[in-house]
Structure formats: structure tokens, C-alpha cells
């Protein structure tokens, strides 16, 4: 049987002990490309993890008394679920009206997207990227509409946080010539602010559709 090697945050170790299906692999949309991608969903507390895979030629694993071909290494890292919600809100925006969330986050290709509706503090999250309305007569239900202006503000915060993290972690954002494999002990201070902004924008753009990435670049 195939075996996989996973790097997970320590605190997930006994997730599957707490609840039967404590940790689940789900196929959800890749918000940048619209295609499918694999995620890990922790049920309690609900938390979304993206899964990146380290893939390089000429690797394999010895796992206990067995050999596993491929040498893939899967890494699960927490991901802001708002990137996924945003994808659906933008799609629904074409209808130009306020809608209840459970009519927005539907996807017959990736039906597990309804898990996103169970996220704690969902309403707080949505305030970053939507206008909302409550309909007093009917059911006090909240209705949402994608707000480009709020979203760009939210993304700007993301870019700034990312820039700070790039600096703290001495990530080489300069010209590609210096391979990141050669970590210079002292960060090459020649990396200009501009490089950090472009690099951070590029990273964030891996999680949003192309069009929004262009808007963000202008913003």
C-alpha cells in the first residue's frame, strides 16, 4: 500500500482521537485557479489547512521496514478560509444582489464547501469582504454581497503582514539570481521595500483569482 509522509502542526496529533472524523481530507476549490485542491479540515475546533507537497525528482522514503517511492512530503499549514469564501462571494456577485450565505457557498463540483459554513466566527470573517443586510421581516437572516473595496483593504492588510513575515524570516525577495538555497547569514539589505511589496503581492496572489490580483496590484 502507498504510504504518505505528512508534516502537521503538533496540536493536531490527537485531533482524530478527540472525534471520530476529527481530521478530514476534503477536496475544495483552489481559489486562484478554480480547480480542485486538497485541504485538511479539523473538525474541533473547525480549522482549515492547505496542503502543499514537496516534490523533487530522485527521492524515496524508507518508512520503518518498507520503501516508498516518490519521496513526496506533504505539509499541512493553516489557511485563512476567507480566501475560499471570497471565491464563492465573487462568483455570486455576478447576480448583483444580497444573498444568504448558504445560497452563495454551494458547489456541486466540491460539495464539501459547506464545511466552510460551520467555521466559528464566520460573520466576523465576512465583514472583511462583504456588505451585509438583515431582513427584519423574514427571519433575521443575514444577506451578503461581495464588496470589492472592503476586500482590497483586507488584502492590503494581508500583504503588509506577509511583508513583515518575509523580513522576519529573512526570505530572499531580491532578483532570482541569488538562489534562496544560499541563505546569506545577514539578509541582503539591498532588498528594497518595493521588492517586498511585489513579492508579498505575488504570494497572496496564489490564493485569489487573477482579476482580483490585478486589482490588488493597482491598489
Amino acid at each position: 500500500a502507498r504510504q504518505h509522509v505528512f508534516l502537521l502542526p503538533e496540536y493536531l496529533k490527537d485531533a482524530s482521537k478527540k472525534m471520530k472524523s476529527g481530521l478530514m481530507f476534503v477536496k475544495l476549490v483552489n481559489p486562484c485557479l478554480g480547480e480542485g485542491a486538497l485541504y485538511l479540515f479539523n473538525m474541533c475546533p473547525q480549522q482549515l489547512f492547505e496542503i502543499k507537497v514537496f516534490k523533487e525528482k530522485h527521492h524515496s522514503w524508507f518508512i520503518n521496514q518498507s520503501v516508498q517511492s516518490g519521496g513526496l512530503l506533504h505539509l499541512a499549514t493553516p489557511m485563512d478560509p476567507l480566501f475560499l469564501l471570497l471565491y464563492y462571494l465573487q462568483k455570486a456577485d455576478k447576480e448583483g444582489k444580497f444573498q444568504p450565505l448558504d445560497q452563495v457557498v454551494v458547489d456541486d463540483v466540491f460539495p464539501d464547501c459547506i464545511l466552510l459554513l460551520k467555521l466559528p466566527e464566520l460573520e466576523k470573517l465576512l465583514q472583511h469582504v462583504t456588505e451585509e443586510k438583515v431582513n427584519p421581516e423574514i427571519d433575521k437572516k443575514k444577506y451578503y454581497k461581495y464588496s470589492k473595496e472592503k476586500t482590497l483593504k483586507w488584502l492590503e492588510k494581508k500583504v503588509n503582514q506577509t511583508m513583515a513575515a518575509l523580513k522576519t524570516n529573512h526570505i530572499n525577495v531580491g532578483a532570482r539570481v541569488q538562489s534562496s538555497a544560499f541563505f546569506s547569514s545577514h539578509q541582503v539589505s539591498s532588498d528594497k521595500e518595493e521588492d517586498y511589496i511585489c513579492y508579498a503581492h505575488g504570494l497572496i496572489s496564489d490564493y485569489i483569482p487573477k482579476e482580483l490580483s490585478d486589482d490588488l496590484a493597482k491598489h
Partner: protein
Amino acid sequence: MDLSELERDNTGRCRLNSPVPAVCRKAPCALGVDEAGRGPVLGPMVYAICYCPLSRLTDLEALKVADSKTLSESERDRLFAKMEEDGDFVGWALDVLSPNLISTSMLGRVKYNLNSMSHDTAAGLVQYALDQGVKVAQVFVDTVGLPETYQKRLQQCFPDIEVTVTAKADALYPVVSAASICAKVARDQVVKNWQFVEKLQDLDIDYGSGYPNDPKTKAWLRKHVEPIFGFPQFVRFSWRTAQSILEKEAEVVTWEDSPTEEDQVGHGKITSYFNEGHRTRPRLPHRYFQERSLESATTL
């Protein structure tokens, strides 16, 4: 012969020697070089030197160290013991090259072949005798490869010594035959006491002579080939016999510098370098991920 160092770690090389007889530091000596285990696909190759004063060569001959090839294993053991007893005028030294050292040298990225290994080992042992203060006047060596090349090489190393490289030197010179006995005794002992680090299950040690054409040896190799790890390190992986069994029985393992198919096939047509028009290239992950060979997982 105390081979305990080798029994502790049999993956490298180890040098053994007798005490240097005092007389060998005063009188001009003859020194013979020979090896044992050059041909087998199993076990170490052992290089040995044996030396004694020129004036005592007849005494050495009297020990009946005739052409060692005619001696049985037990006769060699007895003669070696006798040489040890008469240690007041005979000295010896050995260099045991483990099968792992032979394999890794011959298969290394920079090839170090068996002849070069042999020549260097022989020269190393002669140098060792000189460093111990032995007054070496003449060296006799059983040839490996072309005698002329080998002779020239050794003579360059030791210009003040009269070097004779010849085939069948062990039948011509008693010091070479004595060296050959030392080498064979050592190799037999190492092979007999081989410690398999691989903790083999159902290990049978009936591997015959160890020579590639010995049916017992071939059967043993086929029985002990392991599809992922090849063989125990007792085997010389660089031997054709071993390699052909690996090619049949073992998994194909590719390394970064292994020649790949496209390397072999050669480059495609020149037009293959032109991009096919406006074909949309799949959007690549951000360079942060590319530089770390990371991509989004889509399936498990």
C-alpha cells in the same frame, strides 16, 4: 594474526604488521610484495609485504616458503606460524582492502580502478617499511597489469631501490612467496570470521571459493541478493558477476546524476524548442514555492 580491528569494522581498510626485526634496520634487505583475493567477487583483497636481510634469503628459503600457490591452507597457516617464530629476521605487513572499499572506489563518481588501487597499496606498504626504518635494498613484486608500467611507476616512487616487477614473482623469489603466504593466510582468516553487519536471516556461509565462476559462489549470490539493498557488504558490487545479478533481481534505483532516457535519446528536433504558439502555460506557483519545490496538493 590479530584481525579484531577488522572484525569491529569491515567496511574500510586495515593495516597489520609484525614487529620490525632489529637486523632489518641494519642490513640491506630484500622485500617481496604480493596480494591475495584479487579475483573473487566476495571478501577483501589483501596486500602483503615480507622482508628479510639479503644475507638471510637462504634461511627464508629453508623455511620452505616455496611457491605459495602449491601450498594448502593448513600448510600456509603452519608456514606463517613458523615465520612468526623465526621473527628475528623476517618482518611482514599487510593492507586489507574490504569489499566495500573496493566497490565504492570502483563505482565512485570519480572511478578508482582496481589496478590503481593495487599499485597504490603496494607502494604504500613499501613506503611503510621504509618509514619503519627497514633498510630496503631490493623490491620484488608480482605484476598487476603491464609489468613495465608498474615497474616504472614503482621505480619512480623509490629511485634508490632496485625494483623488479615480473609475472610469477612468487615462484621466483622467496620473499614474494612469503608475502603471498601472509596475504593468503590473512584473507582466509578474514573470510572465515566475516561479521555480517546485515544480520542476515538463514545465512549460509557455504559460498564456495568466492571466485565468480564457482557455481557455489554464484548460487550464494543469487540466494542473498536483496531487491532494494543489493547484497551484503561482503560482496564486491563492482564485479560483473554481482552487477548482472542485480540487473536481473534488484529494483532499478535512479540518482540525480543517473543518465536519464532523454539524455540517452538526445535532444528533440530544434522546433521542439519553439513554444507551441499561444498554448496557455499552466499558471506556476509563486517563486517562493517553486524555489522550494512546493506545489498545491491535488490528490493524495
